[in-house]
C-alpha cells in the first residue's frame, strides 16, 4: 500500500515537474503574448487528450507487459511499423535539438555566452547522466528540480490577472486579427502537449518500474492528476505572458523577449527563475526524449534495453542515445534558432500524430493485448477528435504561416 502511495506521489510530482518542456514554454509564451487568454482552451483540450493517451500507454504496459513500440511492432509487423517509427525518430531528433537549445538559451541568459557554445557541454552532461545514472534516480531528480517551474503559477497569483477574462479563454473563440497565426500557434500548442515521445517513455518506464495489473488505479491517478496539474504550469506561462508582454506589444520571436515575463512579479529573481525554469524543464525533457528514442530503437530492433542496466550490459541501447543526443546538439551548434526550431517541430508533431496515435488506438482496442481492460467509447472518441483536429489544423495552418510570412 505504502509503495503505491509513494508511486502516486512520485507520479504526480513527475507530472508537474516533468510536464513543462521547451515546446510548452515557447508555445504558451507566444500564445499569451500574441492573443492574451484566447488560446487557453487549446491547452485544456490538449491536456484532456494527453491524460487519456498517457493513461492508455501505462495501461497497455501494466496489462500486456509490452511497451508501446514493442506491442506496435508485434501487432502490425515491422513493414508497417517502420513508417511511424521513422516519423517518430525525425520528430524526436528535432525535439531533442530544441530541448538542448532550450537549456543552452537558459545558460546564455544566465552567463551572456552565446547559446551555440553551450550545446555540446549540455549534450555531454545529458549523456553522462544517462551513462552513469539509473532510470529512477534521473527521473526523480529532474522531476523534483522541475517543480521550480511552478514559479509561473505563483507569478500569476502575484500579478492578479482578470480572472473573468482568463475563464472566458477556456471557451474556443476566434481573434479579430491574425487568424492564420492564431491557428498555427493552436497547432503548435497541441503538438507540444501531445508529444508522442511521452507515451513511449511512459510505457517503457512502467515496464522498467515493473508495473502489473495492480497498478491500473495508480496509473489512472498519475495520468489524471500529474498531467492535469502539469498543465497548470503551461497555463501559468500563457497567463504571465498575456499579463506582461501583450500590453507592452512584445511578441515572442526570440527567447530573450520571453525572459522578462516574471520580472514584474519577482524583480531580479523573476529573471533568474525564468532562466532556471527553462533550463531545468528542457534538461528534464531532453532526458526523456533521448531515452524515449533509445527505447523505441532498441524495442523495434529487438535489442536489450534498460536504463537500469550498465552500458556494458546493453551496449546498443547506450550507443543509440549517444548518437541521438549528439545529433540533436549538432543542430544547435550550427546555429539553428532554438525558438523557430521548437515551434516548427511542435507543428510537425501535430502532422505526424495520426501516424502514431491511430495504430496506438487500434492496439488499445485489441482484446489479445488488453483483454477486459481495452478502451471504452469515451477514450477512443476524445483521442480521435483531438488528433484529427490537430492534423487538419496543421495541414491548413502550416502553409498559411509559412507563405503568409
Amino acid at each position, binding site marked *: 500500500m505504502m509503495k503505491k502511495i509513494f508511486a502516486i506521489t512520485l507520479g504526480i510530482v513527475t507530472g508537474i515537474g516533468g510536464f513543462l518542456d521547451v515546446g510548452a514554454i515557447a508555445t504558451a509564451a507566444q500564445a499569451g503574448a500574441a492573443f492574451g487568454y484566447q488560446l487557453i482552451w487549446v491547452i485544456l483540450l490538449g491536456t484532456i487528450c494527453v491524460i487519456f493517451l498517457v493513461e492508455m500507454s501505462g495501461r497497455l504496459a501494466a496489462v500486456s507487459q509490452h511497451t508501446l513500440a514493442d506491442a506496435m511492432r508485434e501487432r502490425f509487423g515491422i513493414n508497417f511499423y517502420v513508417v511511424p517509427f521513422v516519423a517518430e525518430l525525425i520528430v524526436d531528433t528535432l525535439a531533442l535539438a530544441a530541448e538542448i537549445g532550450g537549456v543552452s538559451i537558459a545558460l*546564455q*541568459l*544566465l*552567463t*551572456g555566452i552565446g547559446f551555440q557554445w553551450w550545446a555540446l557541454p549540455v549534450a555531454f552532461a545529458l549523456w553522462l547522466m544517462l551513462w552513469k545514472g539509473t532510470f529512477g534516480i534521473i527521473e526523480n531528480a529532474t522531476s523534483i528540480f522541475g517543480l521550480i517551474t511552478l514559479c509561473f503559477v505563483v507569478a500569476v497569483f502575484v500579478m492578479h490577472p482578470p480572472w473573468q477574462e482568463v475563464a472566458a479563454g477556456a471557451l474556443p473563440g476566434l481573434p479579430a486579427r491574425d487568424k492564420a497565426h492564431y491557428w498555427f500557434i493552436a497547432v503548435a500548442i497541441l503538438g507540444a502537449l501531445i508529444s508522442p515521445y511521452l507515451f513511449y517513455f511512459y510505457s517503457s518506464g512502467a515496464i522498467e518500474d515493473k508495473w502489473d495489473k495492480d497498478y491500473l488505479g495508480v496509473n489512472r491517478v498519475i495520468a489524471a492528476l500529474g498531467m492535469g496539474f502539469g498543465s497548470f504550469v503551461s497555463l501559468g506561462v500563457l497567463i504571465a505572458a498575456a499579463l506582461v508582454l501583450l500590453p*507592452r*506589444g*512584445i*511578441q515572442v*520571436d*526570440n527567447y*530573450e*523577449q520571453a*525572459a*522578462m515575463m516574471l*520580472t514584474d512579479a519577482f*524583480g*531580479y529573481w*523573476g*529573471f533568474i527563475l525564468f532562466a532556471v525554469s527553462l533550463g531545468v524543464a528542457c534538461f528534464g525533457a531532453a532526458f526523456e526524449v533521448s531515452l524515449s528514442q533509445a527505447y523505441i530503437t532498441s524495442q523495434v530492433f529487438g535489442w536489450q534495453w534498460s536504463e537500469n542496466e550498465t552500458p556494458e550490459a546493453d551496449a546498443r541501447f547506450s550507443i543509440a542515445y549517444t548518437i541521438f543526443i549528439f545529433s540533436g546538439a549538432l543542430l544547435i551548434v550550427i546555429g539553428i534558432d532554438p525558438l523557430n526550431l521548437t515551434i516548427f517541430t511542435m507543428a510537425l508533431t501535430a502532422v505526424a500524430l495520426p501516424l502514431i496515435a491511430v495504430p496506438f488506438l487500434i492496439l488499445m482496442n485489441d482484446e489479445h493485448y488488453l483483454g477486459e481492460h481495452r478502451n471504452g467509447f469515451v477514450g477512443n472518441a476524445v483521442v480521435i477528435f483531438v488528433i484529427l483536429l490537430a492534423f487538419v489544423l496543421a495541414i491548413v495552418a502550416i502553409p498559411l504561416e509559412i507563405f503568409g510570412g
Partner: protein
Amino acid sequence: MKTVSSWTATAQMAGEAWTKGFVPDAYARRTLETARENLRETAETLEQVKQIPANQNLQAQTEIGNLRQTMNQMRAAIESGNKSALAQSLNQLIMQKQALEMSVKSADTEQ
C-alpha cells in the same frame, strides 16, 4: 512594422528592467544587440517591398535607423553603467516609437 514595434518594446522593457536592477548587464546588452539586428533585417526587407511608396519607405528607413542608433546608445550606457544616460536614451526611444506608430497610422489612412 509589427516586428519593429515588438523589438522596440523589448528594448524599452530591457532598458527599464536594467535600470531597476532586474536583469544582468550581459542580458540587457545582448537583447539590445538582437533588437538592433532584427531592426536591420526588417529595414532590408522593407527596402525590397515595391508596393510601399518611395517616400513612405524612405521615412520608415529613417525612423528604423533612428531607433537602431538609440538602441546603440542604450547599449553603450549599459556598458559604462551610466543610468542617467540610459534614462535619456529611453525617453528618446519612447518618442521615436510614438513617431513610428503615428507614421504607420497616417500611411494606413492614406492607403
